[in-house]
């Protein structure tokens, strides 16, 4: 709020979009969150380089009898258990050497760091793409319902109400359980259970009402404004009014939702994967790695703790950025924080 006053005073002659952009760029939160996000994205992109050239492992193949040479001694990756009855094996803990299991191995003898880097790729990708999906359908439904009103609005709003009344996690879990058996079919294209398209589709769908409802309300009020009446007056067609008058005015609110949605969708993906109905093996995401790490929680806690920390850091950076975007674009705080 304080930042706002300072910047609007110098930028009176500029367009509102330009003003918001400058406020956003000068915001400290933007820089901090961007730095964190860039670092995490870079790490995820560099995952193959780490696993092939530094750690020399394949994080998707289990290597139960692997061993490596450390300080002249041969070390087993899965070591005989020293706790309890001494039965079974415990994966190696952190060696703090980049070329040999820097942070240790999981129960399949796979390098944890490489798993987390690759898992980050899927988590980030699913979070981002499913949010694009949510935004696309939410804007489509919100604009059509709010603009055409009447029967169309009633029909679409009832569908939104229906999904709204279905607790998000229950809906997502129901869809996952079913689609993991049947796969997902769009005409000729078929996505099997192992495809990332499944979690993307499910997570993208369940949050549509959370964004579409506020956008619809906004379109309803924009539609009553004088500039829309003027456009109708000079004979502009429906599509013309939607694209040149309505859409540019709802886009700021949609943009405010986007970073928050990415964070939310990432958390949902990780929860589904944790319940083993999200990303399917051999693919990994931070959620599946936490699930893998549960069995080792009391012997090798890092396996479950690290991916969780990555989720917290990434989601926090996205939420921080979301706050900055909201303050820059929506000074009157029209867009309520959603869950």
């Amino acid at each position, binding site marked *: 709020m304080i930042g706002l006053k300072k910047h609007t005073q110098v930028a009176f002659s500029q367009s509102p979009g330009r003003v918001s952009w400058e406020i956003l760029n000068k915001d400290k939160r933007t820089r901090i969150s961007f730095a964190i996000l860039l670092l995490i994205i870079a790490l995820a992109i560099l995952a193959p380089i780490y696993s092939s050239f530094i750690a020399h492992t394949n994080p998707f193949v289990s290597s139960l009898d692997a061993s490596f040479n450390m300080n002249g001694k041969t070390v087993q990756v899965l070591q005989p258990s020293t706790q309890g009855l001494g039965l079974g094996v415990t994966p190696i803990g952190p060696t703090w050497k980049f070329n040999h299991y820097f942070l240790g191995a999981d129960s399949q003898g796979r390098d944890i760091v490489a798993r987390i880097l690759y898992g980050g790729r899927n988590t980030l990708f699913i979070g981002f793409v499913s949010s694009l999906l949510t935004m696309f359908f939410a804007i489509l439904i919100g604009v059509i319902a709010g603009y055409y009103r009447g029967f169309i609005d009633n029909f679409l709003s009832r569908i939104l109400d229906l999904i709204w009344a279905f607790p998000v996690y229950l809906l997502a*879990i129901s869809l996952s359980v079913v689609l993991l058996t049947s796969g997902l079919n769009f005409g000729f294209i078929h996505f099997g259970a192992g495809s990332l398209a499944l979690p993307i589709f499910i997570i993208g769908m369940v949050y549509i009402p959370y964004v579409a409802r506020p956008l619809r309300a906004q379109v309803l009020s924009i539609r009553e404004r004088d500039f829309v009446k003027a456009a109708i007056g000079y004979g502009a067609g429906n599509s013309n009014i939607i694209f040149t008058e309505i859409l540019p005015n709802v886009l700021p609110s949609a943009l405010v939702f986007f970073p928050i949605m990415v964070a939310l969708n990432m958390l949902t993906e990780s929860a589904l994967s*944790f319940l083993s109905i999200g990303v399917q093996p051999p693919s990994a995401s931070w959620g599946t790695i936490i699930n893998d790490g549960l069995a080792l929680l009391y012997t090798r806690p890092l396996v479950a703790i690290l991916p969780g920390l990555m989720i917290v850091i990434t989601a926090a950076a996205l939420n921080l950025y979301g706050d900055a975007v909201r303050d820059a674009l929506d000074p009157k705080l029209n867009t309520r*924080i959603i869950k």
Partner: protein
Amino acid sequence: MIKVILTRITSLFLVLAAISVLVFLIFFATPGVDPAARIAGRNADQQTLIQVRHSFGLDKPIPLRYLSMMNHLFIQRDLTSYVNRGTKVIPELLSTIPATLSLVVGASIIWLLMSVVLGIKAASSKRKWIDPLISVLGIVGVSIPVYWLGEVVNLITQSKLHDSIFHWLPPLGYVGITSDPVQWFLHLIFPWITLSILYTGIYIRVLRSEILTAMTEDFVKTERAKGAGEKRILYRHAFRMSLLSIVSLFGLDFGALVGGSALLTEVVFNIHGIGKLTFDSLQNFDLPVIMATVIYASFFVVLANAIVDIVYAWLDPRVRYE
């Protein structure tokens, strides 16, 4: 007012009916999904499949199956599970409610207290570092995956430290309040804290921004002009105003949690509540149980929506007169 309530109740039943159809279609009409194959097991032969279909009534047309299930669920009230035959669904569902209610009520008391204290502090503190600090806490709160936090809590309290600092803590699970109130409390203390952290984060953020918005409203200016003190303005006007959105948010969250959204917390802490029951039944394709739990959950969400609207109209005269 009565008209509002009546339309609300009608739409409540319509939404519930629609949801039951939706769930039924998801599990019975998705191409490629065969509940009989699930019941019969992985490598069942054709003969067994036909038998299973017949004995569970899965060879009947879909609308008939739906009506029969609704009949057993609501009229006969003797719907039985597909997986554990003979287990009645309704008593099973009812038996999980106390655990979920205990978890959700306790957690909501914690998060309401915490967020009101911290939210007001963040919005009103004169010291420069307090607001950003609380805001960061709020952001971290909403960014923590609740199941992961639960596991970390388990790691701290149930592992090595369990022999020293946390020796008073019972193992994971749930004990009814009627059988042993002390054990009930001890079993739930960490699940409460875990579940409330996410919601504390959300509520701090909402409360802070609502109070700041209310502070710019005309009625606050009027109060200032009348010479009211800052404390009075904050508590009697700005905070009261911001309670409106807290009430609606709380209604919805509470409804969803009681309906089973606390399932991740229940799974992690091994509390056999409604969420865990739903999750277990989903994994087994135990459709009668899924049907009952989802309708039950939706009932709470829709009911909470309706109550929120009515309470809102009662709290905020501007809504009433529109």
